[in-house]
């Protein structure tokens, strides 16, 4: 038994962490976040050079053929850096969608271009789009029309991959007149949510999966694990920052870190957050290695990190006092990142309900 990361996974985490610490200083991060596209060309090129887009793509298609636990390690590091980069959808879910539901020709056509960083796919689930109106996507003569919201990584996407309500996946080229993208400002400047308006748009169907609903779910589950890992990284960053700040900040002739109240806030945070790491690792590992538990583990990783993340974000902000509420330290970028992770691809109540259904404890 060896429950933990391999040396290679630790290295991957260190390399990416160091890269982000060097290349994404807070001013740079803030500047990208202010744009709200969730995209910086420099950062993107850097991540491509590190090989991230091809992480999950088999070597035959130009990737490195790693697993979902490796991808989670990356997600955690990106969360730690609040990296404004299309990752969860573009580098994890879309490649998996092609691997699960694309035929050989589609995989050969798309995967090498994704691995090379040439195409970036946004991705959305109609059923989870969170729209306040009823869905209005219509397929007619092989062309798609309607408005599709809640797309991840759509800020600088070359294409979008859409899961329709029945579980079918389609790819739409965003560079045509029939698809209009609008990225709304969300609380999280590092990752927008995008709506695409389609008017008789040509789509490419990914329909090679034997069980399209199961295939769609496995892509969704992988995405949820990534968001959990992202929250884990962001939460860890906020805790580290809080400890540092509390050690430096003097009030009443003492560093505030010496006050029991402040210490106990940090103790509460680490006591909730550290076990999350093992949960996220397991949930990621289970996606590849323990199919029976993959769904439930992914739902719980997403839901539990959402709940813990919220408390961590608030408590660590409080440790920073007024400074945590200002823009001066940029701490709020992580606060908002955690808020974003919570709500996309299903909020915690939703995920827990799915876990209940998957275990036969509730009906859909």
């Amino acid at each position, binding site marked *: 038994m060896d429950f933990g990361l391999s040396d290679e996974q630790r290295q991957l985490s260190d390399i990416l962490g160091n890269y982000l610490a060097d290349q994404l200083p807070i001013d740079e991060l803030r500047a990208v976040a202010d744009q709200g596209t969730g995209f910086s060309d420099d950062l993107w090129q850097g991540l491509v050079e590190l090989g991230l887009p091809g992480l999950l793509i088999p070597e035959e298609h130009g990737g490195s053929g790693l697993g979902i636990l490796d991808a989670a390690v990356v997600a955690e590091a990106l969360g730690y850096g609040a990296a404004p980069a299309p990752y969860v959808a573009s580098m994890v879910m879309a490649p998996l969608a092609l691997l699960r539901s694309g035929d050989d020709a589609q995989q050969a056509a798309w995967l090498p271009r994704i691995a090379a960083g040439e195409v970036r796919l946004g991705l959305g689930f109609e*059923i*989870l*789009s*969170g*729209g*306040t109106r*009823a*869905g209005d996507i219509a397929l007619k003569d092989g062309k798609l029309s309607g408005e599709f*919201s*809640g797309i991840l990584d759509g800020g600088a996407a070359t294409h979008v991959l859409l899961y329709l309500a029945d579980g079918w996946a389609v790819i739409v080229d965003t560079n045509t007149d029939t698809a209009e993208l*609008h990225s*709304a*400002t*969300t*609380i*999280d400047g590092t990752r927008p*949510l995008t*709506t695409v308006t389609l008017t008789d748009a040509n789509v490419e169907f990914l329909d090679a999966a034997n069980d399209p609903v199961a295939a769609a779910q496995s892509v969704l589950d992988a995405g949820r694990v990534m968001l959990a890992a992202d929250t884990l990284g962001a939460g860890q960053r906020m805790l580290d920052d809080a400890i540092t700040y509390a050690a430096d900040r*003097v*009030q*009443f*002739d*003492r560093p*505030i870190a*010496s*006050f029991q*109240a*402040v210490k106990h806030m940090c103790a509460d945070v680490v006591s909730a957050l550290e076990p999350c790491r093992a949960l996220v690792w397991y949930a990621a590992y289970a996606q590849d290695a323990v199919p029976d538990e993959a769904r439930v583990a992914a739902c719980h990783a997403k839901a539990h990190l959402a709940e813990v993340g*919220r408390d961590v974000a*608030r408590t660590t*902000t*409080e440790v920073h*006092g*007024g*400074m*945590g*509420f*200002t*823009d*001066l330290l940029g*701490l*709020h970028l992580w*606060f*908002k990142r955690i*808020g*974003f992770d*919570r*709500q*996309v691809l*299903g*909020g915690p*109540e*939703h995920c*827990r*309900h799915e876990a209940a259904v998957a275990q036969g404890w509730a009906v859909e």
Partner: protein
Amino acid sequence: MDLNYSDRHKALQDKVRAFIDANKHEAPSLANVRKKPDRATLAWQHKLLRYGYVGRTVPRQYGGFGAEPDVLESAIISQEFTGAGISGGITNQGISMLVPTLLEVGTEKQRVRWIAPTLQGEIIWCQGYSEPGAGSDLASLKTHAHVDGDDFVINGQKIWTSSAHFADMIFILVRTEPDAPKHRGISYLLVPMDSEGIEVRPLKTMTGQSTFNEVFFTDVRVATDQIVMDRGDGWKVANTTLKYERLLLGDPNKMLNRFHRIVKMMEDTRIGGRRLMDMPEYRDRLLRLQGEVMASKYHGMRLLTEADKGEESGVKRLIVKYFGTVLAHKLSALAVDVMGEAGLAYDLSGLGTEDASLWNSDYMYDIGLIIGGGSSQIQKNIISERGLGMPREPRAEPQKAQKTMER
């Protein structure tokens, strides 16, 4: 137990309602109360002053209405204006804090000079207490002033100064006696904001807005008679001021109004085709909060009654800021959550609704309120020490100004 107002208070309530009905067309937009007052705002302010809905208990000789203090009257006036969504007059710390302070500890000359123009909206004040290095431990403030001829010369920095970008005056705490014990080396000065050497920079917060400022003082000169009480008395003066801030009782219905907004949203909104109110997990959270909101409301009424009777409310009063701000945050958290992805929207284009954007702003601003004006940790110290009589922590070092303060 009697939930009804007395005849006298009922009459006042009727009168205020009639006034609002008859005059609301003249009222300035609520959005303007925290801005530099325009003509309509000033005219409204003067009218409210005349009717005694502003400066009600300030003696007539200082430009007020001269009524006897009556907590319920004040509460009724405030609730009626808030409930109607009508401006109850200019809101700034000059009116809420400086005026009562001058009435209590100012000289006759200071009262005459400052109170009436402040009530009339001709002088807008901001407050210079907090500093980047002096938040919870306010008395460790380092902004200092030395006497040079007939002037104080001020150097240092203040933070969290709302209204500073348009205020006419600032009341400020500065260290004037560097060798005195920490709390006894501070003075309370009144300084024109157009003095040379004052620089105001907007302070952006996590909500993205800049409702606060940083104010920098570089060799700012102010006449030595611009002091309230004596040199070294500033901490005493500030506590007079803070006392009045603490006396301002919140509207017992405030949380309830917020709660009803969520109820309406959950009744009216469908996400993924399902009415939010029909999701049992959300509904149970809503109901849990309803219990808290009701407790908060009736607790507020209880405090009003005690204040009305002139009773000391002790710990009952001290807990209000802590549980109130935390409850407000729980409410906005529920509102944000139930909207799912649509709840992430932070502008009004495309995705989401006005609700989403407003609730998200509240969700973050509420954290600022939990922290601001004495963080939850400081509040809990106050509650346990002053409210429950538990002993203070042993001090780290003897209480005195640190050397670094004297640069």
